[in-house]
């Protein structure tokens, strides 16, 4: 009855609920969306060419920050309220728990941004043919961002100056994804080689970051 998947499913649902209850989940995409959609046109003035060129960059930054901010509190809260101890007692590796939780948070905070991207594109006057590729790039890139953000957050959980540390630790890992992602979105061909590199960097994050998180959380409870 237990099965190996049961704890993961439970962790997933709990994290979904948490992300939603904590509110930071939908806050950030919504806030970024509203903020970017209102502020960008105001500061850029009416030149739509610049607007359209700037929008993808603004979205990438929003995505990166959203992930950092969402993940910052995630593991620290688990550490403080004792929930992490309960996971650590069990047999399921912490790396898998961390993976599932991160994924749940991406669904709540990262995925909406990906879905909203076309609307933002519409407002900012980006050509419609760009949208599908852009949305997929934001999805993949966001996933990588959340995993690296989670890695930084798990290392910094329960530590003085945790926030600064997370930023410092996560930033180097964000950069390749951001480079490939931006190149994919702004490329003029339909399926640029950077798209594969973006996918590869996301896969790498998915493969490596959970183990890092698991080890870091083990350290945190100790």
């Amino acid at each position: 009855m237990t099965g190996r998947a049961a704890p993961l499913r439970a962790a997933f649902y709990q994290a979904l609920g948490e992300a939603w209850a904590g509110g930071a989940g939908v806050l950030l995409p919504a806030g970024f969306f509203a903020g970017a959609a209102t502020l960008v046109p105001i500061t850029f003035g009416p030149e739509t060419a610049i607007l359209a060129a700037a929008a993808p960059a603004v979205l990438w930054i929003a995505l990166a920050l959203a992930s950092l901010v969402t993940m910052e509190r995630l593991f620290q809260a688990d550490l403080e309220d004792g929930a992490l101890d309960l996971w650590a007692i069990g047999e399921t590796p912490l790396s898998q728990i961390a993976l599932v939780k991160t994924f749940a948070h991406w669904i709540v905070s990262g995925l909406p941004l990906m879905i909203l991207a076309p609307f933002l594109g519409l407002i900012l006057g980006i050509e419609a043919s760009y949208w599908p590729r852009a949305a997929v790039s934001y999805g993949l890139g966001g996933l990588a961002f959340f995993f690296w953000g989670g890695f930084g957050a798990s290392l910094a959980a329960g530590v003085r100056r945790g926030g600064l540390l997370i930023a410092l630790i996560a930033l180097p890992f964000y950069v390749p994804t951001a480079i490939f992602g931006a190149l994919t979105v702004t490329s003029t061909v339909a399926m640029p080689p950077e798209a594969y590199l973006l996918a590869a960097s996301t896969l790498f994050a998915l493969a490596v970051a959970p183990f890092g998180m698991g080890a870091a959380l083990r350290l945190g409870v100790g």
Partner: protein
Amino acid sequence: MTGHSLIETSGLGAMRGDRVLFTNKSLTVDTGEICLLRGANGSGKTTLLRLLAGLIPIEAGKLNVNGAVHWLGHADGLKPHETPRRHLMHWARAWGSDVDIDAVLVRYGLVLAADVPATGLSAGQRRRSAFGRFALEDRPVWLLDEPFSALDDDGQTLIAEQISAHCARGGAVVASVHGVSPLQPDREITL
């Protein structure tokens, strides 16, 4: 009760920062036994329990725990917005337990508070919810850090009974306590 040991340690030691908390602690807890940890504040009871639970890596000595562990720490493990019912449902799901949650809520006196989020619960109600986890799955080793704190007299009796019943079933209990306790310990260790 065959009396084989569920917990065996020898020469355990622990440091925190530069401070040596204890060295060379050996303890054995057999099935059916209750071991109480006593000691002044900051003497290392919590640290020893966390070592036994495998939460802290062992730096000195040997440790052998034969069986799954139920853990009750100073922190109750409830998320801020979790209600007692959701908390128990969550861990029942995680552990694949099909125990009747409502029955557990009744047994632990949480009926009125079953749907109050943790931020609204009283300290004792939070503690009772944490104890509710122990009813979800049968695990031989119970590690309890000040199990009676925040509990009223009924609650203390209830938990003491649960602990005795657990030992009667062949389980082992290690608990840290201060002052008088309603438990009849088989062993006592002072840190």
